[in-house]
């Protein structure tokens, strides 16, 4: 085989491998959005689940087996993670976890799945802390009041 043929074959081989990587790897540098249904399948298959919300939000409810790694601790925590292990990342609506997924992909994580619609759309098993708390009555200063009220439950994220 002449040198020129060798070069052609080498280029073709690289092209085929590159195409395979593009076709069979998660899009976006190792990250891809997945539906709530697919997320539930991934959880059932045993994927590692990362909840990037605050500890308070996590306590209220989270996907079964999820680990709580708040956004402000993600960079530190991820340094020790296996970059080839599939991860499913989520928050409430996909805003914060979108940032987390981009960060992980940039760090070389190869299989990051993003529950882009957030836990509010998730249909699989949810562990809820609200079942463990009983509230006897509403605080006096909330309802009924002198007029309409908007209650806003949020966090400082």
């Amino acid at each position, binding site marked *: 085989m002449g040198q020129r043929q060798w070069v052609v074959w080498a280029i073709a081989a690289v092209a085929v491998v590159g195409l395979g990587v593009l076709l069979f790897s998660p899009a976006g540098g190792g990250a891809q959005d997945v539906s709530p249904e697919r997320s539930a399948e991934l959880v059932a298959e045993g994927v590692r689940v990362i909840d990037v*919300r*605050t*500890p*308070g*939000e996590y306590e*209220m*409810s989270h996907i079964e087996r999820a680990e709580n790694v708040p956004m402000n601790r993600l960079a530190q925590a991820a340094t020790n993670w296996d970059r080839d292990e599939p991860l499913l990342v989520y928050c*409430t*609506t996909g*805003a914060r976890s979108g940032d987390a997924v981009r960060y992980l992909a940039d760090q070389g994580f190869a299989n990051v799945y993003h529950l882009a619609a*957030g*836990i*509010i759309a998730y249909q699989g098993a*949810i562990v*809820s*802390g*609200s079942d463990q*708390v009983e*509230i006897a009555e*509403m*605080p006096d200063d*909330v*309802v*009924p*009041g*002198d*007029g*309409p*009220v*908007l*209650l*806003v*439950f*949020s*966090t*400082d994220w």
Partner: protein
Amino acid sequence: MKPVVDRLEQEYTGTVEFKVYDVDKSQEGAELMRSYGAQYVPTFVFLNSDGSEAGRLVGEVAENDMKAQLDVLR
């Protein structure tokens, strides 16, 4: 979301009372949230003057959707 809430609170001053709770820092807020069966933040619960719930919204909500709920409170 906070700028939207702040803007609406100003716009509806004297009409609707806004009670904003950071549920990570406020025990009262966390308990109240649970008492309403809310599991996610942000959650917005719209209450009429008699305390009845007129509606609720969860997640990143458009300002217009918030206004639509606020405008029908009685």
